[in-house]
């Protein structure tokens, strides 16, 4: 007898996501449906505005991955105008991007994902001495004494005894799917709190160069933070020292807290290898060592993998009109030339037309349209994007750091490479990548210092700042690898104004509804075949969905304008 369950709201994500799942008689997920339930219509809002302002508008798509849209936006405007930025601007952007990746992954692991693996209530029965022994056996991190864990346990006990469980209320504590011993749960709770305190330090690098976080400032043509070693109102040695200290502390925290915790926790779950899903992986790549127009210089390579075949990495060209296309077979939109065909972002349209049930409703009609997300495809293939995609592409290409780290993790856990194609593999890939991006932070800091030492302090190219110098019409593509995966912005500028702007976002790739051929996206595909212990406690669903790090404000579409006015919206 099939049973249908709904998880809405999915918590510990960005934005509004709804999952409906159909279970078979053994409570195994037969079908899953992923729906974005929010739409803000920014595409209409951007039309006609100054392209130099677009970064600020698009940045507000998401405050969690709070730099990625700004970066993709300035890159697409610069691509359209033919502007190369000075080396310092490229390096500062890379440093800020690496900072974002590292902080975002850390917050995701501890605050958005850990509670799918860690039972907070179980920690109350931990032996502090044993917790201390375990902690000291896996890491030199200093906060691991018996007294430290004893004190934490007492605080946790008092918190639970208060009867006001706050963010831990009504969750799935005691669920059979939690496999950690109480002591490891206690260690994880300690680091949940430590990471919550530490994450705010990492982003101070954004504040140095961008003035604030969330939503630091970016600039078409470079960066606004001028360098002047003889001024206390510019980037000077004191600012650079602050950045360096944060980088050192970050590397220590990732190496001594995040990675040991990840390996310790994964050790208990290596038998739970569900959630693999599509087996198709896509990355645009990022961290240019030279120009953004030279993908060969990227520290994160561009490419695609199909059917888990690591022997072939396909070339990806987001400007090729035949490669990236968005479909709307199950999305609440219409296309002017028929809904059956996908459109490349440069010819994309967004005409919202809600045909779902009127609220309040119990179930979506998943045979028809059921999401505000579109359905992107690469050469007609559904693709997964994000840390696992990037790590697999680097692994397949033989990046030494990634190969060593992945092999070390696999060996420590005593599992084969096939374990990577799973929910746990996705979560492990994020940690491995976080270690890599913390290293990138230091790499780009050193680059910045070397460049300043050589006498170059330029941060801005003013050649195309004045709109009077712009061509009457041009178009551009900008990209980044957001923490959640490949992000692309496509712009069309006409008469110094934005004529069209379209974005294809990582969570749109991963969370999209089915395409016209009935093929699922990454979330839906990953959930299929997962057995649930108790359908009323959807721990397994949360675990797999969270492993993608959903960002629904990004995914629920968003930007593209082809002069389609929203006044044509019809409600059936």
């Amino acid at each position, binding site marked *: 007898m099939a049973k249908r369950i709904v998880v809405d709201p999915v918590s510990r994500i960005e934005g509004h996501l709804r999952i409906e799942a159909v279970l078979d008689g053994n409570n195994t997920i037969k079908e899953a449906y992923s729906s974005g339930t929010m739409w803000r*219509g920014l595409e209409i*809002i951007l039309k006609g505005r100054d392209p130099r302002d677009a970064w600020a508008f698009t940045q507000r798509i998401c405050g969690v991955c709070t730099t990625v849209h700004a970066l993709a936006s300035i890159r697409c405007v610069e691509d359209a105008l033919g502007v190369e930025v000075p080396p310092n601007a490229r390096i500062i952007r890379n440093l800020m991007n690496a900072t974002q990746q590292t902080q975002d992954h850390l917050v995701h692991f501890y*605050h958005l994902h850990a509670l799918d693996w860690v039972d907070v209530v179980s920690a109350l029965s931990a032996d502090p001495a044993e917790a201390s022994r375990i902690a000291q056996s896996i890491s030199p991190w200093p906060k691991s004494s018996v007294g430290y864990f004893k004190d934490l346990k007492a605080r946790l006990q008092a918190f639970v005894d208060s009867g006001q469980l706050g963010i831990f209320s009504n969750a799935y504590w005691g669920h059979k799917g939690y496999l950690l011993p109480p002591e490891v749960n206690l260690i994880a709770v300690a680091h949940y709190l430590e990471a919550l305190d530490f*994450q705010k330090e990492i982003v101070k690098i954004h504040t140095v160069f961008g003035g604030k976080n969330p939503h630091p400032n970016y600039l078409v043509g470079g960066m606004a933070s001028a360098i002047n070693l003889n001024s206390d109102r510019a980037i000077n040695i004191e600012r650079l020292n602050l950045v360096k200290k944060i980088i050192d502390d970050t590397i220590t925290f990732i190496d001594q807290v995040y990675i040991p915790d990840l390996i310790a926790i994964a050790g208990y779950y290596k038998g739970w290898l569900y959630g693999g899903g599509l087996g198709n992986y896509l990355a645009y790549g990022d961290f240019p060592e030279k120009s953004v127009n030279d993908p060969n210089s990227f520290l994160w390579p561009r490419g695609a993998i199909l059917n888990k075949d690591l022997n072939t990495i396909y070339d990806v060209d987001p400007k090729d009109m035949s490669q990236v296309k968005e479909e709307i077979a199950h999305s609440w939109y219409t296309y002017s030339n028929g809904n059956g065909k996908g459109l490349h972002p440069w010819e994309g349209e967004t005409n919202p037309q809600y045909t779902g049930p009127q*609220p309040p409703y119990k179930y979506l009609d998943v045979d028809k349209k059921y999401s505000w997300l579109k359905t992107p495809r690469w050469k007609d293939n559904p693709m997964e994007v994000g840390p696992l995609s990037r790590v697999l592409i680097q692994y397949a290409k033989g990046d030494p750091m990634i190969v060593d780290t992945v092999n070390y993790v696999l060996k420590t856990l005593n599992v084969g490479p096939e374990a990577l194609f799973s929910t746990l593999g996705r979560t492990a890939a994020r940690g491995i990548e976080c270690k890599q991006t913390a290293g990138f932070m230091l790499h780009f800091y050193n680059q910045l210092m070397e460049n300043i030492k050589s006498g170059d302090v330029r941060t801005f190219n003013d050649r195309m700042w004045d709109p009077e110098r712009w061509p009457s019409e041009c178009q551009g593509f900008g990209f980044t690898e957001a923490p959640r995966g490949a992000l692309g912005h496509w712009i069309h500028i006409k008469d110094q104004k934005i004529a069209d702007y379209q974005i294809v976002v990582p969570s749109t790739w991963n969370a999209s509804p089915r395409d016209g051929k009935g093929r699922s996206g990454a979330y839906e595909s990953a959930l299929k075949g997962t057995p649930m212990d108790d359908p009323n406690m959807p721990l397994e669903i949360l675990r797999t969905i969270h492993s993608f790090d959903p960002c629904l404000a990004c995914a629920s579409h968003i930007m593209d304008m082809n002069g389609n006015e929203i006044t044509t919206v019809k409600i059936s």
Partner: protein
Amino acid sequence: MEKKETFAEVFEARGVKRRDFLKFCSLMSVYLGLAPTMVPRIVSAMEKKPRIPVIWLHGLECTCCSESFIRSSHPIVADIVLNMISLDYDDTLSAAAGFQLEEIRKKIMKEYKGKFILAVEGNVPLKDNGVYCTINGESFLDVLKETAADAMAVIAWGSCASFGCVQSARPNPTGATPVHKIIKNKPVVNVPGCPPIAEVMTGVITHFLTFGKLPDLDRLKRPKTFYGVRIHDKCERRPYFDAGMFVESFDDDGARKGWCLYKMGCKGPTTYNACSSIKWNEGVSFPIGSGHPCLGCSEPDFWDNGPFYTRRADVSFVGVNSNADKIGVVAVGAAAAGMAAHAIGTAIKKGTSESKTVETEED
């Protein structure tokens, strides 16, 4: 929910020494701008009050407010969510999901009727029966109205909840509407900014917890403590404005020397916020301090007051249309006269802003 701890008990149970607790209370008083004589009152309040439940809803938004909130350095967010309030419902941090999470909301509404705080991040799409934002099949409008009906007070986080922000920028396709235009029978405090400064957010909460009432608000329902003075009036680059020394192009000589960004489009002269006093991320910097003009992100309709890199308006005074260039010339020639001109211009500008306030209230 039989036993409700006071703050002091919570601190004690968590191993916080009495001396540290008193120190915390003193810091809070300094932070809130209170006289030292108020410290005993804070201590007393923290010792006697149980943790207040908070329901934190998300509408049309980007979660930058939540992200800012967890950046708070004093107090740190772990202390807030574990020791000071009971954050019982929050899409971003709650362990529970789906119907278990919705159960919590209903339970708090019932058990703490009139005694919980409703925090709202994001705003409400009013067009087309609310289909642009649904939670568990219900429109966000219904969820908000239902929850607010039992709340003691409503905190509207950020420019979305306070004024509308990016999704309500022209032509506002979803009918995105700020909270105070929908919830009219409860006290609402607006905490604008995109996002608001972390310590402003936690300051508003701790003010409420400590004194049992909302901070004093201005006509836009903003706490006077943090939104009473323009960024321009406390800006470290203000002397350069007065002296007529302006950045003319990014990364020019003036930019490298930290001169005034007014000509680059800086909205500091028309923006009320604490960026140039409290600053961001534990005082590390603020937008102008890092060389970028203020976008005015805590002001109503700031997205439609652009373009961002264009000077918003000439400063006009006493029947003479002047501008930054002319003021600069005056200032160089006769500093006193220039200062006076600016002071008058400032007063007029403030008047303009307040007349806008009235419009915002009425529309």
